[in-house]
């Protein structure tokens, strides 16, 4: 989903993930409507979400890295039994995740607000990608992130694609869209202006659509 910021992408993603109520229309996922379900129910249907705002939404800044990483799984076995948290298993899980996703931190018990932007984003990516969901919605996943982490995150999203999951990438970065996407839809003023396949997409084509024009037809 390409588009200049502020053309409705954020609102669309929020309604897809149960964070915004829907007045009209429907969303069908795997044959069932997920319209106006709670965010928890939507996650349970197999959708993971990397939100646009990592500080307000994606992370709990005063929580530790460990507490942030376990945020999707703390309810489930083996990380909790009845209401008791199994702290040693949670610790193992978190440590494994930091290694796997190359998160640079001095430990898992430091608050996440002390991490750099890139590392903080990697915490979110690690947490959501490790769920192995069928659909990941990634909203501006490399915004405000250092170059090394940008590469890492794009690699990770590609891996996810190769494993057979679907990635809905929402980005204002054309280079990112062009390098990662198979199919590109462009949003402008709340409408989808066109859907272009990767082979037909050029910066010019997309740029035109993003500013409200029409795509140039190939002869």
């Amino acid at each position, binding site marked *: 989903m390409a588009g200049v910021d502020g053309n409705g992408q954020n609102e669309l993603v929020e309604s897809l993930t149960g964070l915004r109520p829907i007045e009209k229309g429907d969303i069908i996922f795997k044959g069932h409507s997920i319209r106006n379900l709670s965010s928890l129910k939507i996650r349970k249907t197999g959708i993971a979400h990397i939100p646009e705002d990592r500080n307000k939404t994606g992370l709990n800044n005063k*929580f530790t890295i460990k507490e942030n990483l376990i945020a999707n799984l703390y309810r489930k076995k083996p990380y909790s039994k009845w209401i008791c948290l199994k702290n040693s298993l949670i610790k193992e899980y978190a440590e494994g995740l930091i290694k796997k996703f190359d998160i640079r931190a001095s430990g898992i018990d430091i608050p996440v607000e002390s991490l750099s932007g890139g590392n903080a984003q990697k915490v979110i990516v690690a947490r959501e990608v490790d769920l192995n969901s069928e659909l990941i919605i990634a909203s501006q996943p490399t915004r405000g992130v250092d170059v090394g982490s940008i590469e890492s995150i794009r690699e990770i999203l590609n891996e996810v694609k190769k494993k057979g999951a679907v990635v809905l990438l929402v980005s204002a970065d054309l280079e990112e869209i062009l390098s990662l996407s198979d199919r590109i839809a462009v949003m402008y003023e709340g409408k989808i202006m066109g859907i272009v396949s990767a082979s037909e997409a050029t910066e010019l084509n997309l740029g035109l659509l993003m500013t409200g024009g029409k795509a140039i037809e190939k002869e």
Partner: protein
Amino acid sequence: MKKNDYVNTLISIIISFLLGGIVIAIMGYNPLETFSQLFQGAFVGNFNLGCTLEKFVPLVLTALAFTVSSAVSVFNVGVEGELYLGAIAAAWVGFSVVGVSSPVHIFLCILLAMVVGALWAAIPGILKAYFKVNEVCTTILFNSVAVLITSYLVSYPLSGHLGVPQTPPIADTAKLFRILKPSRANIGLFIAIAVIIFIYWLLFHTTIGYKLRSVGLNPNFSDYIGIDSKKTMVGGMMLSGAIGGLAGAIEVMGIYGCFLDNFSIGIAFDGMLAALIAKNNILMIPVVSLFLAVLKSGSLGMERFTGVPKSLIDAIIAMFIILATMEGLFLFKKQRKLRA
């Protein structure tokens, strides 16, 4: 960070005693003798130690109630109201229910007190979570309402008709066993300790605690991750109210043996103070509460033996509060320096 907190509080205690000692000397009394009488008044002898414990129990429970609501970022200034309603609920079960064994009777009294406290706290909780109504306003106003409700109840329908505004005395099976006679200290102390341990476990070792803390620190994140932040906020408030109700029940069942009109001279506000000084750190709350209880109960003995007025202790407590909260000022200045 935590170790620093303990050290800072200790330093605040020492400094406030030093300043207090200087004032005592200026007033013409011997500071060492005065403090010695203070500590003796708090610890030496069953009656004195018992007095300290009597004051410690409601203080530590109301402080805990405030801390639990703070965990979901709600300022429950209404613990006093929950205390009163819990107290009268416990008194009612205490004198109305007959023919049950002691453990059952005590359990029923405490149960109703906690349920009533929880329901009372739920109202400002719901108002804040769903309608963004400022909880400080609602809870403070609710205090007055609660106290007046109990005043009415104890003067008319639940009156003991004894000429004093109190309910009939509760049955012996509902009374909490006294320890350290002739003081009024009772096994409510052990109930309080058990509750502190339980709440600590709940907040840091359970999924429920994870949800409560998550909502308190970042409700947006919590909604995104699938925790209903509004329901959780109300739940946290209800837990806080339940603990407040328990505090009231223990006062009735352990100390007075009936519900006495206006029995609390701001117990819950002292508890809130203790919680704020302890920075809502559950491990520090018993320490700060014990310190305040020691000062308050020791001051009686101190005044009796040395003539130093009790109000001097209030001044020392005030100095301690200023010092303990001034640390925030130093941190603020440090952050400004770092930024510059």
